[in-house]
C-alpha cells in the first residue's frame, strides 16, 4: 500500500493543534498585561505566528 503523504498529515496535525490553542477554554488563560501589551493580544498573535512558522518549516522542507 502507498503510504499517505507525510507532509499533508503533518500540516493537518498542525491544524488540529491550532483548534484547541485558538479557542476557548484555553483562550481565557492569558490575562493581564505583559510589558504594557494585553496578554490576550500577545497570546493570539504569538500562537498564530508559531503555527505559521511550523507550517512553513514543514511545507518547505520537502515537496508535497
Amino acid at each position, binding site marked *: *500500500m502507498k503510504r499517505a*503523504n507525510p*507532509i*499533508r*498529515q503533518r*500540516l*493537518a496535525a*498542525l*491544524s488540529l493543534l*491550532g*483548534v484547541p490553542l*485558538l*479557542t*476557548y*477554554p484555553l*483562550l*481565557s488563560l492569558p*490575562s493581564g*498585561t505583559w*510589558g*504594557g*501589551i*494585553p496578554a*490576550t*493580544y500577545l497570546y*493570539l*498573535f504569538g500562537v*498564530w*505566528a508559531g*503555527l*505559521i*512558522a511550523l*507550517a*512553513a518549516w514543514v*511545507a*518547505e522542507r520537502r*515537496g*508535497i
Partner: protein
Amino acid sequence: MLSGWFIALLATGYLGLLFAVARFGDARADAGKSIISANVYALSLAVYCTSWTFYGSVGRATSGGLSFLTIYIGPTLMLLCVGVIIKMIRISKAQRITSIADFIASRYGKSQLLAGMVTVIAVIGVVPYIALQLKAMAASVDVLLQHSGSSVEVWGLDSTFLIAVILALFSILFGTRHLDATERHEGMVAAVAFESVVKIIAFMAVGIFVTYGMFGGLGDLFQRAAASADMERLLHLDSGRAGTWTALIILSGLAIIFLPRQFQIIVVENVDESHLKRAVWLFPLYLLLINIFVLPLALGGLLHFGAQGANPDTFVLTLPLARGAEALALLAFIGGLSAATGMVIVETIALSTMVCNDLVMPWLLHSTWLQAEKRQDLSGLLIGIRRAAIALILLLGYIYFRLAGEAYALVGIGLISFTAVAQFAPAMFGGMYWKQGTRAGAVAGLLAGFVVWLYTLLLPSFAKSGWMPSGFVEHGLFGLGWLKAQALFGLGGLDEISHCLWWSMLANMGAYVAVSLNSRPDAVEASQAERFVDVFRFDARNAEARLWRGKASPDALVGLLERFLGAARARQQLAAYALSRQAAGWRNLPADADFVQFAEAELAGAIGSASARVMVASVAQEEDLGLEEVLDILDEATQVRAHSRQLEAKQRELEAATNELREANERLRELDRMKDDFISTVTHELRTPLTSIRALSEMLHEDPRLDLADRSRFLGIIVNEAERLTRLINQILDMAKMESGRAEWTTGAVDLGEVVRESMASLEHLFREKGVALAGNIPASGPVVQADRDRLTQVMINLLSNAVKFVPGGAGRVQVGLSSAAGLVRVEVHDNGPGLTAEECNVIFEKFRQGGNTMTDKPQGTGLGLPISRQIVEYFGGNLWVESEPGAGANFIFTVPLPVPEE
C-alpha cells in the same frame, strides 16, 4: 488640495495600471511563459481580504475587541488541511469543473437542478457581500470628498452607482476574454496578486503612522486605552462569547474554500498543486500581518475622535486626514480600492460563470428558440450572457446597498454571506468523502439549510432595514413565540450569526444524511461518486471507456463543439486530442466512448457539466447501463489497482522463496557430494582389511603344504584384520547414527575423575606391553558433570589408545591431567610422540584421516576415532582440540562444561 477630479483621476490611473498588469499576465500566458508562481498564487488567495478587512475590521474592533481575528484564524486552520484542498483541485482538473455549483452538480450525477440551486444560493448569498464593497468604496470616496469640500456628480448619478458601473466594465474586460472557464484567467490572477501587495502596504503604512506617529507606540496606545473603562473592555476577550468565537472560526474556515471567488482562485485558477505548499503558510502570514494594526487603529480612532466621533469603519482614512497626512490617506484609499475591486472582479466572474452555465443555459437548451438556430455559433452568445450576468450581479449589489446597506456595519453584511456559503459544506465534504451521499440528500440538505438561513438571517436583515415588517423577528411568524426568527424554539442568548449557523447546519446536515441514507443513487450518480471519492485511486483509463456505451456520430459531436466553443477553438482542441491519440486528424478517430468523453469534457468547460451532459445526450444514443452494471465496472476499476498491488507483493514473495530454494538446493548438492566422498572413502577403508584377509585366506586354501607356523601367523593376521573390520563397521554405524541425530544418549551425573581413572586402568596392560609409562594426577573425587558416562569413557580410551599408538616403545611417556576452571573441566592427554604439524592438527579431526604417513606406514587406526570423540564432546557443550609441534609430542585436550549451580 484633494479635489474630486484628482481623486477620480488617481483611481482611474490605478485601475489602468491594474489592467496593464492583467494584460501583461495574459500575454505571458499566451506565450506559454506563465507568471503564476507559487508566491503569486499565495498572494492571489488574499482576495479574501476585501474592503471588509480593510475598513470593516477596524470598525468591528471598536465594538468587539479582538473577535475580528476569528475571520482570519479560521482560514489559517482550514488551509492547513492541504489534503482536502488538493483533493478538490484534483477532482476539478479531472472533471473540468469551473465553479462550485458545477462541482456539487457534477458529483451528484451532473444534476441541473442542483447546479441551479447552488447558483441561486450563491447569488442571493453573495450579493450583500458585493453591496458591502460598494458601500465601503462609497464611504471612502465620501470621506475624501468631505475633507476637501468638493463633490463629483455626473448627470445627477451618485458616486456609488458610478463605481458600480466602472467595476462592471472592468470585470467584463478582465474575465470574459476567453470562453472556456477552465482556461485560466492568468492576467486576472496576476492583477489580484498585485492588488494584494498594494493593500497590505497601504494598511500597514497607516497602522505604523497611527501607532508610532500619532501615539507613542503599541504600549502607549494600550495603556491609554486601558485608562478608559469603555476601551479597557476591548483589550480582553469576553469568555461569555466563547460560542460565537468558535462559530466564527468554523464559518470563516468554510468560507475560505466555499465562497465562489475563493473556489475560483484556489481551485480553478490553480496552475500547479505544488504551489499550495507556499500558500499554506504565506497566505496565513499575510493575514497575520494585515491584522496586527487593526486593534491599535481602532483604539487610536476611539482615543482621537472620542466615542461619538467619526464612523469607525473609515478610521483608516480619517486618522491620517486628521493629521493632515493627505498622501497617506490617498495611499489608504488606493489600498481600499484594491481590496474592493479585487473581490468584485473575481466574485462577479465566478458568479457569472455559474449564472450562465447553470441558470441560463439549461433554460436556453429547453427553449425552442435555440432549436431553431441549430447551426449557429453560440460561443458569442455565451460570452454575451456572462457579460450581462456580471452587470446584473453588480446592479443587484447596488440595489441591496441602496435598500438595506445603511442599517448594517460592514462586517455584519459579510457574515450573512459567509453563513450562506457555509450551506455548501455538507454537500461538498459529503461528496468528496462519502460515496453514499445522493442527489436527493444534497437537494434536501441545501434546501433545508437555505430556508433556515433565509428565515433567521437574511429576512431579519431586511426587516432591520425597514424593508419589510419585523413582526416575525419580534413576536414570531403568525405570532407563534417559538418561531421568532432569531430565537428559534426559544434558543436565545446567542448572536444572530451563531444562532443561524447552528440551526441551519443542523437542518442541512440532518436532511442530507437522512435523505441520503434512504434513497438510492442512479447509475450516473454512482459513477460520479466513485470518481470523486476515489479520485486518487480511480483507474480512469480502465473504467471510463466501459462506463459509456452507445452510438454517436462524430460529425454531430464536432458540430456541438463548434457551436459552443466557436469553430476556431473547436478545431484547435480537436487537433490536440487527435494528436494525443496518435491519429492524423479527428476524422480518423472512431466515435467511441473516449471520443464522447472528450467532447463532453470540452463542453463542460464551456457550459458546465450538467448542460454538457444534456447536450451530448441529445446527439448520441446512450444505452442505459443500469445501476448494478455501473457498480460492477466501478468495483473492478478500483479493485484492479488493488489486485495489481497484491500481485506485486506475491511476486516479491515468490522471488524470495525461489532464492531460498536455490540455496537449499546448493546445500543439498554439497551434502550429496560429501556423501559420495564418504562412501568411496568408506569402501576404500573396508577394502584394505578385506584384501589382506582374502589374500591370506587364498594362500591358506590353495597351499595345503604350508607349514604350521605360517598358517598360525596368517590366521592371526586374518583375525586381527577381521577385528579391525568389525571395529571399522561399528564406528561407521556409530558415526552415521550421531550425524543423523539418532544416537542414543543417557545423560546423568558423571564423576569425570572416575571416568579418567577407569579408562587408564582398562588400558594399563596395553601400555605395559609396549613399555610406555602412563602417569596421571587425578583427584580421588573429580568434578561431576552432566554427560553420558559410556560415551566419555569412549572418548578417553580413544585418546589414550591414540597416544600409546604413536609414542615410541620403551621410551614413551603419556601424562594425563585433570583440572577445572571457569566453569569448565579440562582433561589433557600429553604424549612425547613425534608430534603434529599445524596442518595435521586440523586434518586429524576429519573422517578417515590418520596421523603419520598413510602412504608408507601401515594404518594404525580406523580414522574415525577422533571425529567421533569430537562429536561426543561437542554434544555435551565442550571442545576437543590438539596442541602440538613436530618433534615436541602432542597434547590432546577436551573440555566439558560444569553444570550451572542452581540458585
